[in-house]
């Protein structure tokens, strides 16, 4: 079973490598990873979906929390959380199936972002499982190309963020 990990980390070079390094050194394959700046430009929020051996899960989270650049790593797998993903689908349609494709897309809350004689580009967001179904349905209508953002997650319970206050350096003692 995959695990959803949410991290708040410093927006610094190498921070991503340190986090993923903890997973790749154990030979784990990352299913999806998203990272972007938060409202505070110094910080990034990352969501990783990865299949970690259940006995090692807690250990991996602890080791992520130990990283200097990581402010907080949380395992959201068993916590109340919202998980969403964006998918972009380009579909080639025949003239006959164009209306049907639009109707199906609507059922999944999809939105046409480009339309041409060849077909459509459609965006949809939602639960990753739901998007799997959406992609399956689209495929039944013709040749498709798919790009997915990977899961984005946010925990629904406030978790206390423990931050280290600044410390004086030895440089000024002299």
């Amino acid at each position, binding site marked *: 079973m995959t695990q959803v990990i949410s991290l708040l*980390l*410093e927006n610094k*070079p*190498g921070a991503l*490598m*340190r986090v993923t*390094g903890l997973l790749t*050194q154990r030979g784990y394959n990352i299913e999806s990873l998203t990272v972007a700046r938060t409202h505070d430009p110094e910080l990034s929020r990352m969501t990783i979906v990865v299949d970690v051996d259940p006995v090692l899960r*807690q*250990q991996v989270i*602890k*080791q992520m*929390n*130990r*990283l*200097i*650049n*990581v*402010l*907080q790593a949380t395992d959201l797998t068993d916590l109340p959380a919202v998980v969403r993903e964006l998918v972009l689908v380009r579909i080639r349609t025949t003239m006959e199936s164009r209306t049907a494709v639009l109707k199906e897309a609507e059922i999944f809350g999809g939105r046409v972002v480009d339309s041409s004689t060849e077909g459509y580009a459609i965006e949809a967001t939602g639960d990753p499982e739901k998007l799997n179904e959406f992609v399956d349905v689209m495929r039944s209508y013709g040749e498709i190309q798919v790009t997915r953002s990977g899961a984005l997650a946010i925990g629904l319970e406030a978790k206390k963020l*423990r*931050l*280290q*206050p*600044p*410390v*004086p*350096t*030895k*440089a*000024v*003692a*002299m």
Partner: protein
Amino acid sequence: MSTLMNGARMLLECLAREGVECIFGYPGGVTLPLYDALYEHPIRHVLVRHEENAAFAAEGFARATGKVGVCCATSGPGATNLTTGLVDAMMDSIPIVAITGQVPSKLIGSDAFQEADTFGITRSCTKHNYLVKRLEDLPQIVHEAFYVAASGRPGPVLVDITKDVLQGQGHYQPVTAIHLPGYKVFTEGHTGQIRRAAQMIQESQRPLVYAGGGIIAAGAAAELREFVESIDAPAVNTLMGLGALPSEHPNFVSMPGMHGSYAANMAMTESDVLIALGVRFDDRVTGRLAAFAPHAKVIHVDIDPAEIGKNRAPDVPIVGDVKRVLAKLNKLLAESPQPAGETVTAARRAWWRRVRGWKEEHPLRPVTSETEIKPQHLMAEIDRLSAGQAIVASDVGQHQMWAAQLVRFNAPRLWLNSGGLGSMGFGLPAAIGAQFARPGKLVFALVGDGGFQMSIPELGTISSHGLPIKIIVMNNGCLGMVRQWQELFYNNRLSAVELDCFPDAAKLAGAYGFTGKTIESPRELRAALEEAVSTPGPYLLNVKVSPSECVYPMVPAGAGIQEMVLGPPQPVAVPSQ
């Protein structure tokens, strides 16, 4: 007021402000600006003969003092050569800062001459690492590096600096504060948990203190001693913790684990409360985890939350600086003296009787022979000369285990060894670092004939600085520990373990300008060691020992620690027909 200076000079300014007196390093193309700045700077640079040894020497310095050790290498091969030392420091939580040069910023990623992705390569070898591409970031990063290396659970930090930063001109502004919001240092243990621990200890009938390298890193030897004495429990020190409690302390049992003593391993197995202080339940200590200390409730104190529950789930986890936690625990125990009922008192007495019984049953006894020098005999003689006071920088292998079993260490920071990584070639350069850190101290480099041949080039460093290191080679003509495993577990099929060529010690040392000697008779041993110690300057003593000795007790891989093999297999008498 700030003065204009180049990046190299600024780096040295930062190092000086961090109290650095000595750097172990090796120059190269991109670090030329740094070496130019060193030319007229009071910081001492020690030119080693290989970058790996610069890292080991920095570790030796740090292990012997608790201060941050510093090493330096150029880009590419210089930096990649450091990596073994970095991982070594990582595994044993040793604070070192490594400075490496990097090709000019504009050339990074172009396969420039002597370019390597040092930042990427050392990501997993360090506690934290930095790539400096802007001069204005340099002071902040250098001070951060020292802070990260020394605080919390110590470890190695690498700062990779591009040549343009070293050459660029700028103003040095003293850095007043370090702000690392994500760097969590847990110092104070949870008061409630400490209270629970105190109660559990007081109610315990068979308590055992299991103390490790964390005690030494935290400078908590005095607190440990007070603790052990106040609860009057037997105590074991791990390989990394030797000296945490003096070897001669009446409560000290010995080292537990794969080559630990019978008494230490039995005490671990039979204890009902295991007080684990600054240890990580390493596989070499626990043996088969499922069989480890099966009756014990575990109190685990460690500064690194990731260590708690990693191998053994504790009953009372305490995340904090073991020095502060022990101080609180001692205070609690002193305030509420043991309301021990008769049952507990009687049980404790019986427990001590059992522990003493195990010690007497199978003591760690130095074996001697009339005809050949037994390795254990060598260790006993070194122990006699050291009397628990000398620094012993050990290499890795059989000699390391025999020394850990038989040499006393009555203070922390005397026993320096590569415990976690087990890096051969560690002993000699670590001794160099230690001797620079403690110039007046008697320092033994205790090495095997294998590890010594990995670090022979450093005889040059030793000689050029006239370091009075006493190099004792325990020479059994083979890679003894590997041979032991082949002998015991691979049907004695000895493969690639024979070291049939060893240089003439007198000639080798002579070639470097100091005294060397080879001995092989047990009758010469004592006098030869005394001569090595009393001769001023470096000394190389090659001690030919019995080639077939194995280290016992031994817990076979995968066995529980109580399933020790106590000695060599005895010849089986063939029943007469």
